[in-house]
C-alpha cells in the first residue's frame, strides 16, 4: 500500500502556503495540523522560520541546496532533490528509526518556502560543490 503520510504532509504545506499569501495570520488555523503531522519538530521548525534561518543557495547552473542555521549555531545542509539533512537528529530519527518524516531543519525549509521567509544566496559552482561535499564529510553534523 502506498504511504499516506507524505501526501498528507504535502497537502498541508500547500494549504499553508496558499493561506499565508492571503495574510500572514493565515497560518494560525493550520497550527494544530502542523503539530499533529510533524509532532515535536513543528515548534522548533517555526522558530527557525521566525528567525529566518533558512537560505536557499543557488548556483548558475541551477543546482540548489538549502542551508539552515540551527539553534546551536551550527549550519546544516539540506538537499533539495530528496529529504536529507546533515544534522544528527535526521540520521537518528529519520534514517535509523523512521520515527519522523523530516527533521526540524527540513521542515523549516518547507515552511520558509511556504511563508516566503527563505533567504536567497547565489554562489559559484565551486562553492555549491563544496557545500554539498562538506555535508558528506561532516560527521558531527
Amino acid at each position: 500500500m502506498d504511504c499516506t503520510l507524505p501526501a498528507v504532509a504535502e497537502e498541508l504545506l500547500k494549504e499553508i502556503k496558499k493561506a499565508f499569501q492571503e495574510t500572514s495570520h493565515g497560518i494560525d488555523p493550520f497550527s494544530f495540523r502542523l503539530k499533529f503531522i510533524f509532532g515535536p519538530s513543528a515548534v522548533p521548525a517555526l522558530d527557525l522560520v521566525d528567525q529566518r534561518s533558512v537560505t536557499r543557495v543557488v548556483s548558475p547552473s541551477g543546482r540548489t541546496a538549502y542551508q539552515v542555521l540551527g539553534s546551536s549555531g551550527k549550519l546544516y545542509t539540506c538537499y533539495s532533490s530528496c529529504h536529507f539533512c546533515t544534522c544528527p537528529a535526521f540520521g537518528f530519527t529519520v534514517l535509523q528509526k523512521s520515527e519522523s518524516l523530516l527533521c526540524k531543519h527540513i521542515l523549516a525549509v518547507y515552511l520558509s518556502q511556504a511563508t516566503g521567509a527563505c533567504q536567497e544566496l547565489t554562489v559559484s559552482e565551486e562553492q555549491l560543490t563544496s557545500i554539498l561535499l562538506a555535508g558528506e564529510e561532516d560527521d558531527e553534523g
Partner: protein
Amino acid sequence: LCRGGLAERLCRLQNRERSAISFWRHQCISDAKMPSDKSGVLIVKILEMFEECTIQVAICQQLEQSPATLSSEDAVINAREPILKVLFARETAAHLKSRPQDVIHIYPPWQKLLLKNADVPVIMNTYFSQKVLLSEHSETTEKTYGLTKMLVRKNIVSLAQTFRLDDLDDELRQESSDQVACAPQIHNNCDLKQHHLALSAVNDSLLEMVESQGAVGWREAQVRVVIQRVYCLPAREGHRSHVQGNKPLWMFCRLCLLVQDAYGMFSEVQLQSLSSADNIEQYCKRWEGKFCCLAGMKILQRTTRGRALGLFSLIDSLWPPVVPVKVPGQSQDSEMMTTNLPPPSFCYILTIQSGEIHVEVDEEEQIANLYQPPAVHGLKEILQIGGCNERCSFWAQVLYLRLQAKHNIPINQREIWLFVTDSMLQNVVHNTPKVVAVSVAASCVLSTEITEALSVASQLVFFRDALWGNGRIICVERTVLLLQKPLLCSAAGADLSELTGPVRLDELDSTTQANSICAVRGTVVGVNESTAFSWPTCDRCGNGKLELCPQDRGSLYCSQCSEVVISPVLKMQLEVFLSCPSRSQSTVKVKVGLFVLINMLLSLQSYEVQSVLGKEVGLLNCYVYSITSHPNCVGLEEIVLL
C-alpha cells in the same frame, strides 16, 4: 522563541490543547458513560492498521454519522464505500490500543483533509478518540489481547518523495510575472497581486507607502527615493560562528541601502544576501547619490532611536538635509519646503519580497540634490571632535594590522586593530599622537579586496562612516572601508597627500598606552635566554600554533586555515631588557625578532648572546602589548610595519 513569532503562537495553542486533551481523557476514565453530546462525532470501525513515522494510519469504515456533519457528498460515499483513513498520533494510539474490528468514536475537533487524486478522505487531529467496548465480547477479547502483542506493519517512507509546494496555478503566475509588460495584464483566476513596476504611479513618500500596507494594491506602490549610502550588514552573529578557520566561506552579509525620500524620511532597505562583500565598492560607486524606485517592499521592522543607535548615528550624520524637503500634509508650494526639522526619531527597515526584483536604480541619471556625500576630515580634526557616537569619514595610511589575541573566538569574529596615520599627523609636532589606533569590530563587514590588500602592503584606505567616541575610532556596522576614492566627497579639512618620507612613530614615553605602536631605543641591560626559541608559523595566516598532521606525521597543519602548511615561516624570538631614557622608570622588555638579533650578533662578531649587553638598540618599531604599574613594566614586541 521570537516574540509574536509563528513558533510562539503555536506553543500557546499547543499548551491550551494539551490541557484540554488531558482533561477530556480524565473525564472519560472517571465517567464510564459516553459523553452525551454526540454532534460531530465520527464513528468508525477499523479494518486495517499500519504505522508511518509513529503516526498510526487506520483504514476505517464509517459506521454512522451524526446529522450535524452530514453533507450531500458524504451521503453518497456513505451508501457505497464509507472508507476513511484515520490518523492517530502516537500517544492517542497508545491510549486506544486499538486493533482491527475495533469501533472508535472520534470527538471534535477532528479535521478532514481531502487529498488531490485520492478518493479516501483523511481524518486527523484525532486526539479526542475513545474506543467503544462491545459488552458481550469485552471480557474474552480483553484476555486474548492481553496475551498477544499486536504487531503493526510499519511503512517506511522514501526519502526521495519530496514535497512540491508549487501548484500548476502557481507556475502560471510565475510565468506571467516574468513577462515584461507595459499594458496591464489581466489574469483569469489569480489574484491581482503580481504586477509590474510600470503599472502604478510613483509616490515620493515612504511613510505613505508604509501606511498603505494592508490596503488593496499596496504591493503596487512605488516610491522614488535617493540612495544616501550603500553598505553590507552582517547577517546575524550566529552565521559567522560556524565558519571553520580562516576560510572565506559564507560571510553571509546582506547588501543594504539607506534611502531618503522627498520628505526627508529615511529607511534602510535590506536587499539580497551576498556571500561576501566583494563588490561593495562597485555598488557604492554606481548607486550612491542616485534615485531609485522601490516597489513591493515588506516591512521588517519599525525601529526607533533608542533601539538602533548605530543606524541613527548614521542618519544623524546626514541631518539636516542639504536641500529643503517637503513638509507632509501641506500643499507643495516652494515656501513650504524646509530644512528646519527635528532629526528623525523612527525609521522603517524594509526588505524585498523574495524572488522578485523591486529595486530599480536610475544609474544614468545625475546625482540627486538631496544626496549628502560623507564629509571627510583629517585625523587630527577628528581626534579633536567633542561629541560621542559621531560618524566620521577620513583617509588614512594603514601602517600595521593586529588581530585580537583571544583564542576562543573564531578568526573572523575577532576585532582587528589597524594602526593608521596621515601626512598631517606625521608632520605635526606636539600634543597629537603620530599614529592612531582604529578598531574594526566583527560587525563591520570587510570586503575580500580590503583584507587581502591590507595583509600585503601599507594601504591608503578611505574609512567611511566610522564611529568616534570616548577618544577612540571604531569601525562598526554600516562603516565601509574603501580603497578607491569615492566619487563625491567634501574633503574640506583633509589632506590627501601621500606620505613623504619614512613613517615616524611616537617614541616610547610615560604617556604610551597598551595596544599602541611606538618606536623605542635604549641600551641592552639584560637578556632572557629562556625566552630564546624558534617556531614554525603558517605562511598564510601567521598562526604560531601549528600541529602535527594526523594523517602524515611529518607535515604541519594549521587549524585556523584548516590546511596543511607546506612551507612554514620560521620565527625566532628573544626577549631583551632595555634601559630607555625616554621612560626611565620602567623596565622595558622587548621581544626582538631574528633580524635584530642577528644584526646585533654580527656587529659584535660573536655568537655569545650575553655579549649584547651594553649594546645600543636604536629605534625599533614595536607594538605595546602590556603596560603594568606594579611592577612598572612595559612589554613590547618588535613589529614590521606594512
